[in-house]
């Protein structure tokens, strides 16, 4: 099975962490349901053009965090995760995205009011149905 993971060349985040985070988001967002088969480490490594060491590290962390489950000889599957856990993961994904946006704004010397205004205007565009 193919999973929509895109590695960023712009980000300085380690690759295993990018894989881990995007898979978590797919699982928490319900795009990958409990029981769904994940690609093998070798296949995902080929698709993402990374080494099996990197992919294995991401899978191991996901397994430790209870997001996926490997059954010897059968493959790797999405685990059953509780609703609160899903909510928390979603929340932290949004938090991280906003954090990155704010950091970018600060690096360009925007002040709190300018950032707030920009944020409000983007939010309004979505609510007004323009986006």
């Amino acid at each position, binding site marked *: 099975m193919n999973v929509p993971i895109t590695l960023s060349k712009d980000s300085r985040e380690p690759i295993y962490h990018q894989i881990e985070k995007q898979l978590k988001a797919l699982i928490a967002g319900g795009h990958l349901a409990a029981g769904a088969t994940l690609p093998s480490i*070798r296949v995902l490594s*080929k698709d993402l053009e990374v080494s099996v060491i990197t992919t294995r590290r991401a899978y191991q962390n996901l397994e430790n965090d209870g997001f996926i489950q490997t059954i010897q000889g059968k493959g790797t599957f999405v685990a059953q995760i509780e609703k609160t856990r899903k909510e928390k993961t979603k929340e932290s994904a949004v938090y991280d995205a906003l954090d990155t946006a704010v950091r970018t704004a600060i690096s360009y010397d925007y002040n709190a009011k300018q950032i707030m205004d920009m944020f409000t205007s983007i939010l309004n565009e979505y609510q007004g149905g323009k986006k």
Partner: protein
Amino acid sequence: MQPFINIEHLEKKIDDFTLGPIDFLIEPGTITALVGDNGSGKSTLLKIIMDLVNADKGQIDRFGLLEKEGDWKKDLAYQPQTVVGYDAFTGEDLHQLISHWYPTWDEKLFLHIINELHVPLNKKFGKLSQGVQQKLTLALTLPRNAKVLMLDEPTSFMDIPSKKIVVDLLVDWMEKEERAIILASHQAEDIKKLADFIVLLRSGKMLGLFEKESLTEKYRKYWVTGLPGFETIPGEVFRAEHEVISNQPDLSEQYFAAHDITPMNSMTPDLEEMITLILANKMDM
């Protein structure tokens, strides 16, 4: 886990060319690409591992067995860049001959490869195009069910769709049991999609064994104007006009900030780009 192959202090002199010293391990479950410019010694190294050429110094431990002891050849399937002696035979003749030599021959896999790559079995090998010869040779090598596969430029003459099929065939082959592949290749796509480790060779000298991401992940490429031309910035390992590659992005970025420089672009460099710079000796390692 015990490595499949352990190469220690290997050296070989051929006329005025010296290969080595070479040191690396091949562990089960891994794909290692030998990458180097033409004449860097990749093919010679594979032949030494296969015991077709003798080394002057050093030793190779294969599956826990030292040179010439025991029967390791069935566990090592080798596909040379050019096969000698196939020309007069048809694909079917070769299939009969080779499958007979290998008791663990996987007939199903052979038929699968022939089918996927559309290889005609009724024509003489010598009459086939180089690309089709490579396809047939691969079909005669993979089903041997060896532990380690050594491929010397297996896809160099193939078209793009066939190369993609071969990558998938090799990925599939790796899924079964504990296996390993050593791949000598100039094909950037093959290296990117298959390799876990890269052994870089420059005119016979081994520059190192690198985990693939280590050649890119710790580096950062900036496009930046306003740099002093005479001074090397912290972390700088390469510069060409406005392009700077750094192996210590934190220090480089501190320098940019302190000198009021804003890079227009900042990204992880490509594997191909890094390999090119290292092999051309244009980068401080």
